[in-house]
């Protein structure tokens, strides 16, 4: 397999784009990445998107969006893996270049959630669960997270210690131009916010936003940011079917495979992006990546280890909570942010000396998870 590098990144601010279409968002982020890569020809486009069929009544999405690039003839594929669409699309795009089949691949994540009402978004999020076993009961994604959150509280940490995950993400988003909520949020404010699904407060959940992020992948020339490891793993979709509902095996499996491919240990990681769509998920992401032992993720969040100058900075641009969580685009935002860190282009968010970065992106309640490892190479 050929080594693969990230040649270009393109991000737009996560927000509510009332006057723009999903095509507009896709085109802006994609063209930014193409320009950043200084590349003329592409031979493959992957579109990661979760909900266009529900939110825009749109199928054949990759074809329709790729048309906006003005490059007829491109091969185009849409990848959907729930909220993990971005990380999984990246995983596929890496293989396209690594195999030698493609020499220049654009992978763009895009989601436009503001086109529909919030209750329909809630329905859409639950569609990542098994309709025949779980979703038909009417349980929401937040409801499932609440069960996990409560179990974690019973075994390991206080509500406040878990809630700190959201406070840290907001702290890191300050000054981030592409973040939806680039401001600090106090623990008091978060804990005083209404219950979304007891014991999860509203301010512990990522919000609804539109966004697009793009990456251009090419064969590596041993300079810049290489893809060191990439893996996707799945688990039983229902937490009730798992031996330990808190284990999040898909995260651990994907991490293990990706680390092995990269030849690294968790302790080698300079920074990580984890899926904090709920505070509890962020904590379990940290543990799943092996950055903290089981039940000790909150300690890392509360003792400063996740800070920009901490042991392993986490969610350095605000994570899903503060940068925003445009579902199918989220995994690509994470990877673009890690790439910016390793390129030394993270501005005020820069983690000094960053060499290895990891992005963890999952769908459902970790029924599928991608872990991608990026590494800075060359001078």
């Amino acid at each position, binding site marked *: 397999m050929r080594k693969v590098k990230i040649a270009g990144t393109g991000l737009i601010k996560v927000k*509510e784009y009332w006057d723009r279409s999903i095509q507009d968002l896709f085109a802006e982020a994609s063209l930014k990445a193409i320009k950043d890569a200084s590349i003329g020809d592409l031979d493959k486009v992957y579109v990661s998107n979760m909900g266009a069929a529900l939110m825009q009544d749109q199928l054949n999405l990759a074809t329709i969006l790729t048309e906006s690039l003005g490059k007829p003839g491109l091969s185009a594929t849409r990848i959907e893996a729930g909220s993990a669409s971005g990380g999984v699309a990246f995983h596929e795009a890496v293989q396209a270049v690594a195999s030698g089949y493609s020499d220049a691949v654009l992978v763009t994540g895009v989601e436009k959630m503001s086109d529909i009402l919030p209750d329909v978004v809630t329905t859409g999020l639950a569609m990542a669960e098994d309709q025949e076993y779980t979703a038909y009961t009417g349980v929401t994604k937040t409801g499932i997270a609440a069960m996990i959150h409560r179990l974690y509280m019973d075994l390991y940490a206080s509500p406040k210690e878990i809630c700190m995950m959201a406070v840290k993400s907001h702290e890191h988003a300050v000054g981030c131009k592409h973040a939806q909520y680039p401001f600090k949020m106090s623990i008091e404010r978060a804990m005083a916010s209404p219950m979304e699904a007891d014991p999860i407060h509203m301010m512990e959940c990522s919000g609804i936003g539109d966004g697009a992020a793009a990456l251009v992948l090419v064969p590596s020339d041993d300079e810049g940011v290489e893809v060191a490891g990439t893996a996707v793993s799945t688990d039983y979709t229902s937490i009730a079917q798992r031996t330990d509902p808190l284990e999040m095996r898909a995260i651990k499996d994907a991490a293990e495979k990706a680390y092995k491919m990269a030849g690294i240990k968790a302790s080698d990681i300079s920074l990580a992006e984890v899926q904090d769509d709920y505070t509890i998920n962020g904590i379990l992401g940290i543990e799943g990546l092996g950055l903290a032992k089981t039940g000790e993720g909150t300690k890392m969040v509360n003792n400063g280890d996740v800070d920009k100058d901490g042991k392993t900075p986490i969610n350095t641009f605000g994570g899903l909570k503060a940068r925003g969580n445009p579902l199918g685009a989220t995994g690509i935002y994470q990877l673009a942010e890690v790439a910016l860190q390793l390129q030394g282009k993270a501005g005020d968010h820069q983690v000094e000396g960053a060499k290895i970065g990891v992005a963890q992106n999952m769908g459902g309640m970790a029924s599928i998870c991608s872990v991608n490892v990026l590494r800075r190479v060359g001078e």
Partner: protein
Amino acid sequence: MITLKTGRQVGIIGYGAYVPMYRLQASEINRVWGGFGAPVEEKSVVALDEDTITISVEAAKQAVKRAKINPSEIGAVYVGTESKPYAVKPSGTIVAEAIGATPSVSTADYEFACKAGTEAMQTCVGLVGSDMQKYAMAIGADTAQGKPHDALEYTAACGGAAFIFAERSADTIAYLEASYSFVTDTPDFWRRAKQMYPRHGNRFTGQPAYFKHIAGAGQALLEETGYKPEDFKWAVFHQPNAKFPINAARMLGFSMDQIKPGLVSPKIGNTYAGSTPVGLAATFDIAEPDDKIFAVSYGSGSGSDAFIFTVQDAITEKRDGPKLASFIERKKYVDYATYLKHRGQIIQ
């Protein structure tokens, strides 16, 4: 751009406002539905025998009394509302009859969601400004519908205000300097025929709807007239809740002090077509001669009408009788079941 400036100067010679006495608190809605919202503290609720027409008549009668004119000389009565008691039959005829303006009068009901009342005002300005009528009355009033457990249930309220327009004279309490309308096809809130409750686009009703149109109308009128926010003593913005008008004021450069007298939504809710007119009436209640007032309405669908009024000396003699504040203070709380009964939502 074309501003609505009249051929001859037009002003208001009498105004009146009315708010029903019953109130439903946000906390009571939260008790029933297990919610946590409080976009306003409480909202007005109609009595069993009140509707948009009775509210309009109350406000119209007060306006006639304050104007000190013979009501038979009123040549137009226009009612702006989105809660007409009759689907087909004008409300304006009943109001005109009740105040003694019939039969030599033009009446019609206006509909443009929450800005129907200010549309009626602009029409009256045109009729008087063109010398077609001596006196013309515009009313904005509503008994708004909010679906149980919908976000609008907290705010959908009732109330209204009436204004009589005439050629500017010493009897004028406030004359119009200019008015401007800003309209686009923006479907943020609607109710189709035969539907009981309106639907809305959630957060789409904010930035791309309310704020865009308020800013569009407000900024254009300021630019055209050359005024700055600090030139105005008072300002009124459509008030669907407590927060939006405050943010709209800030966005256009107005202060909290300027909007305070007209900001009544926290205590009575959103009176829809009555909202900006009621806020304007509350401002007239405390305004002094030479004060300038900036007012911008908003109606879903969507559009905004902006007005600049300058208060004259006659105001001090023409605001006798109960002020809006007294209607706000005169209140009786109802529980949720009584509220449903008053709104006709419990079917016998």
